[in-house]
């Protein structure tokens, strides 16, 4: 346990759960050390494969439970891509769906007690966020050529103001991946830290029932947050993709 009562005082270590440690033995974390982060990232991937590949391997007309969950997830994201981005963006659906499944599974696996939450690290979410950013930017240039730069050149403003507005628009463009990744990591990290703080209060016998009730409530909220964050990440990816395909705003 991260928390214990020492000489009547409460000791909280809410952030200890986010420390990256090697799984086998201890020592420094090097470039290729197999850490708890790697383990839980791998587990998320394995779970996605189990659901999407093994779950649907029978291809039953009347789906089993697992197959219907997989079909539901597929249909949900497919419809979202179609609604938000348009019919012509459906060919980018595999990337968006992979992102969604990966995030949703890391978020839910992180809710298992004593597990590690990979999405609470900016390092992970920034890779996801900047992956989307780079993909969308490259796609924008490929589809629209140099005309994509028109996004930064506000034609409706007076000529003297345009260079300043161009800088502002450029910074605005870079705000999106940053906020995209901070939001996911921040939400997951905050939720898990709050859980640990509530758990810390359980060391006092008198407050313990209240603390357990609190943990239960926050846990329920975290389940919701885990899903909503994955959903928000995915829908914003769709929005950015739409901007890249039709840069007109």
């Amino acid at each position, binding site marked *: 346990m991260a928390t214990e009562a020492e000489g009547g005082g409460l000791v909280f270590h809410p952030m200890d759960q986010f420390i990256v440690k090697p799984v086998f033995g201890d020592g420094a974390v090097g470039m290729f050390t197999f850490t708890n982060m790697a383990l839980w990232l791998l587990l998320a991937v394995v779970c996605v494969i189990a659901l999407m590949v093994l779950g649907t391997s029978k291809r039953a007309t009347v789906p089993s439970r697992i197959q219907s969950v997989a079909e539901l997830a597929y249909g949900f994201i497919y419809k979202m891509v179609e609604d938000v981005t348009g019919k012509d963006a459906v060919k980018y659906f595999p990337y968006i769906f992979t992102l969604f499944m990966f995030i949703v599974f890391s978020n839910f696996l992180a809710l298992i007690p004593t597990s590690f939450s990979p999405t609470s690290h900016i390092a992970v979410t920034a890779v996801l966020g900047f992956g989307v950013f780079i993909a969308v930017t490259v796609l924008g240039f490929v589809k629209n050529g140099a005309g994509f730069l028109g996004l930064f050149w506000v034609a409706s403003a007076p000529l003297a103001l345009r260079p300043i507005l161009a800088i502002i628009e450029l*910074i*605005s463009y870079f705000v999106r991946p*940053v906020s995209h990744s901070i939001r996911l990591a921040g939400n997951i990290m905050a939720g898990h830290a709050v859980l640990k703080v509530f758990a810390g209060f359980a060391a006092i016998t008198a407050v313990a029932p209240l603390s357990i009730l609190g943990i239960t409530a926050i846990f329920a909220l975290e389940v919701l947050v885990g899903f*909503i964050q994955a959903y928000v990440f995915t829908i914003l990816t769709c929005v950015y993709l739409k901007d890249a395909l039709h840069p007109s705003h």
Partner: protein
Amino acid sequence: MSESDPKQRLKELEARIAAAKGVEKDKPHQEEHYSQAQHAWRMVIELVSGLGIGFGVGYGLDALLGTRPWLMVLFALLGFAAGINVMIRTAKELQGQKLAEMAGEDERDRHGDGS
């Protein structure tokens, strides 16, 4: 009989699916209320990260050009403007969604009264 019967049944099933879907349409509304805080978070993070990026760019350019602290101040202000810019765009997007939603609701209400 054996030919028309499955067709008939299929049609009935489709009607039932459509009816069930129509009822379920109301559900996302409830979910919206939970995720209201989400919009607030989104805007706040956009505002702050705009400021942060502007500051970072200014600081970096200052270190390169040796003009500390002028570019830092300038780019922090520009970054702040960019943050507000993104935030306003988000607000507009949300407003558009809200309006579309309300219009859809009116349409459905009128439809319900008419039939």
